[in-house]
C-alpha cells in the first residue's frame, strides 16, 4: 500500500510527460489537451467546437498515440448511415457455405474522432450516442461490447450551419465537456508554420501509457477525495443555472453536477493533487455547463455569451 501511495506522487510527472509529448506535435492548446485528458480520465466523451484548420484531428491522433489507444476517425456527412459507424453483416463463404459475418465498423476503437457530428443525420447521431452511453452496439439481435476504454471526441463547426443537424440539448448533455478550441497566438502560429513546412520531419510520438494503465487512472480519478463544502459549491452552481431565470432559459440537469465533480477530480489528478480544490470546480464549470444551458432572450439581447453567464453564476 505504501509503495502504491508513493507512486501516486509520480502521477503529476506522468501527466506532464504526456502533455509535453503531445506538444511535440501540437503547439499551444494546452488547455484543450488538458480538457481532453480530463474527459478521458472521467471515462466520458467530449465535444470540441472550433473553426476548421485548427488541428483537432492531429491533436486527437496525437493523444491516442501517446496514450497507446486505437484511434478511428469518422467524417460526419448527411449520407452517413449508422451501419457505416457500427458495422454490418456481410455474407462470407466458408467451406462451401454462405454465412453472415459481422464486419465491425470504425466504432470498434478506443478513441473515436467524430468529425463534424452535426453534419450526420439524427439517426446516425443517435446510433453514435447510444454507443457512447452504453459502451456497446446492437446489430439485429446481437450485442457487441466495445473495446474499453472507449471515448468519442466529436467536433462541430460554429459557422457554416447550412445543411447541418444541430445536436439537440438532450443529446449534447451526454458529452461531459464542450471544449472550445481557439486560434493560436502569433508566436504559436509561427512555430506551427516552421514545424510543418520545414524539411525536418515531425517527431514520432512515444507511447507513454496503455489502455490498462488508463483504466487504473480512471479508477484513481473516482477515488480523489472531495470536501463536502466544495461538493456543495459544485451542486449550488448547477442549481443556480435553474434558478437564474433572467439569464438562463433552461438550466443544467443533475448530470451536470456529477460532471463538474468528476471533471474537477480528474483535473486535480492531472495537477498532481490528491484532493479537489474550489478552483478545480470553478475551472471545470465552464466546459461542463456551456453546452447544457440555454440563454434567455434577455441575456442574448445583452450580447452575453454562455461563458459570460457562467462567470456571473460563479460570482
Amino acid at each position, binding site marked *: *500500500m505504501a509503495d*502504491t501511495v508513493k507512486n*501516486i506522487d509520480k502521477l503529476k510527472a506522468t501527466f506532464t510527460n504526456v502533455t509535453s509529448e503531445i506538444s511535440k506535435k501540437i503547439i499551444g492548446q494546452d488547455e484543450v489537451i488538458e480538457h481532453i485528458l480530463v474527459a478521458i480520465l472521467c471515462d466520458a466523451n467530449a465535444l470540441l467546437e472550433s473553426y476548421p484548420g485548427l488541428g483537432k484531428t492531429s491533436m486527437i491522433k496525437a493523444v491516442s498515440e501517446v496514450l497507446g489507444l486505437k484511434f478511428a476517425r469518422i467524417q460526419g456527412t448527411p449520407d452517413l448511415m449508422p451501419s457505416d459507424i457500427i458495422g454490418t453483416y456481410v455474407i462470407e463463404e466458408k467451406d462451401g457455405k454462405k454465412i453472415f459475418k459481422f464486419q465491425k465498423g470504425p466504432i470498434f476503437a478506443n478513441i473515436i474522432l467524430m468529425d463534424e457530428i452535426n453534419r450526420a443525420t439524427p439517426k446516425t447521431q443517435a446510433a453514435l450516442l447510444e454507443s457512447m452511453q452504453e459502451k456497446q452496439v446492437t446489430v439485429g439481435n446481437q450485442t457487441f461490447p466495445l473495446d474499453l476504454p472507449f471515448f468519442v471526441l466529436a467536433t462541430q463547426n460554429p459557422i457554416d450551419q447550412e445543411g447541418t443537424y444541430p445536436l439537440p440539448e438532450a443529446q449534447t448533455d451526454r458529452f461531459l465537456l464542450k471544449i472550445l478550441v481557439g486560434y493560436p497566438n502569433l508566436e504559436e502560429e509561427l512555430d506551427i508554420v516552421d514545424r510543418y513546412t520545414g524539411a525536418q520531419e515531425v517527431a514520432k510520438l512515444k507511447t507513454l501509457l496503455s489502455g490498462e494503465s488508463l483504466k487504473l487512472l480512471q479508477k484513481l480519478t473516482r477515488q480523489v477525495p*472531495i*470536501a463536502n463544502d466544495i461538493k456543495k459549491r459544485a451542486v449550488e452552481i448547477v442549481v443556480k443555472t435553474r434558478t437564474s431565470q433572467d439569464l438562463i432559459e433552461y438550466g443544467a440537469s443533475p448530470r451536470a453536477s456529477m460532471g463538474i465533480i468528476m471533471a474537477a477530480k480528474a483535473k486535480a489528478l492531472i495537477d498532481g493533487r490528491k*484532493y479537489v480544490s474550489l478552483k478545480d470546480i470553478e475551472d471545470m464549470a465552464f466546459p461542463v455547463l456551456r453546452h447544457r444551458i440555454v440563454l434567455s432572450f434577455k441575456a442574448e439581447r445583452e450580447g452575453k455569451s454562455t461563458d459570460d453567464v457562467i462567470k456571473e453564476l460563479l460570482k
Partner: protein
Amino acid sequence: MAAIKSLLNELTYEMFKVIVLNAFLDGVIFFLALLLVLSVFGMGLTLPALASIIFVVADVWWHARRISLRYIEQKNPDIREMLRTAADNKEDDSLMAHALFDEVISRARRVSSGTFLDFRKLSTKIGALFVLSMVLVSLAFFNVNIQKFENPLAGFGGTLKGYWDGITGQANFSNPGLKEGDDILGDPSIAKLGNEQLDITLQQNLNQIDFSNVQSADPSASGDLKDYPTGVEAKASEAYTGGLEDITDRKTAADYSQQIRR
C-alpha cells in the same frame, strides 16, 4: 483512519496550548485591572485573585469548545482545502485518500503553536500588562486610598509653610506634633530614669534657644522620686536660673543619656 484522526487531535492540542496562553495573559490583565480598581477602595488581594482564576477557567472553557477545523484552516490557508478534505473523508479507505492523508500529515507536522499565535494581539496584551503594572506601582507609591485618603502633598506643603513661618518669625509652637505616649518617643520606662525638671527657655526666634539655664528638678513638681517626668515640656517666657551642680543623681542621668543614644 487512525493517522488522520490523531493528526486532528494533535492540531487541536496545539490550539489548546495557545488558548491557555491567551487565557493566562487575559487573566493577568483582568487581575491587575481589578486590583487597580479595588485598591483605591482599600480592598485586599483575595477578591481579584479569585475572580481572575474564575475568569481564566471560563475563558479556557469558552474558547476550547469553539476549537474547530475552520479556525485551523484560517490560520493555515495553504493546507486549508487539503485539511478539510482529509477531515471530511477520514473514513475513506481508498488509495487516493491514503495518499492525501500522508501528505496532510507530513505538511501539518510543520504546523506548531506559533502558527496559531496572533503576535499583534500578544504584543498588545503584553503592553497592557506593562501599563497596568506601572499604574499600580505608582498608586502604591502615593498610597491612594479613597477610604483612608492621605494627601501625599499635605506634608510637603506643611513643611514649606513651617519653613516660611520660621523665616518670618511667625512659627506657632503650641502644637509640637508629638504627644505623650507616641511610639516615636520610646518606651515610657526609659524616661523614668531622670529626676530633673528640664526647663528650656525659648525666645521668640528659633535660633535663640538657651540650654544653659537648666536647674535641678523641683521635688515638689515631680512629687515622689520614683515618679519621673515622662515628657519634656518647653515653657516659653519662663526662664530657670538654677545651676547644673545641683543635680543629685549624676549616675542615673549618665545611664539615661546612654540609653537614649542607643
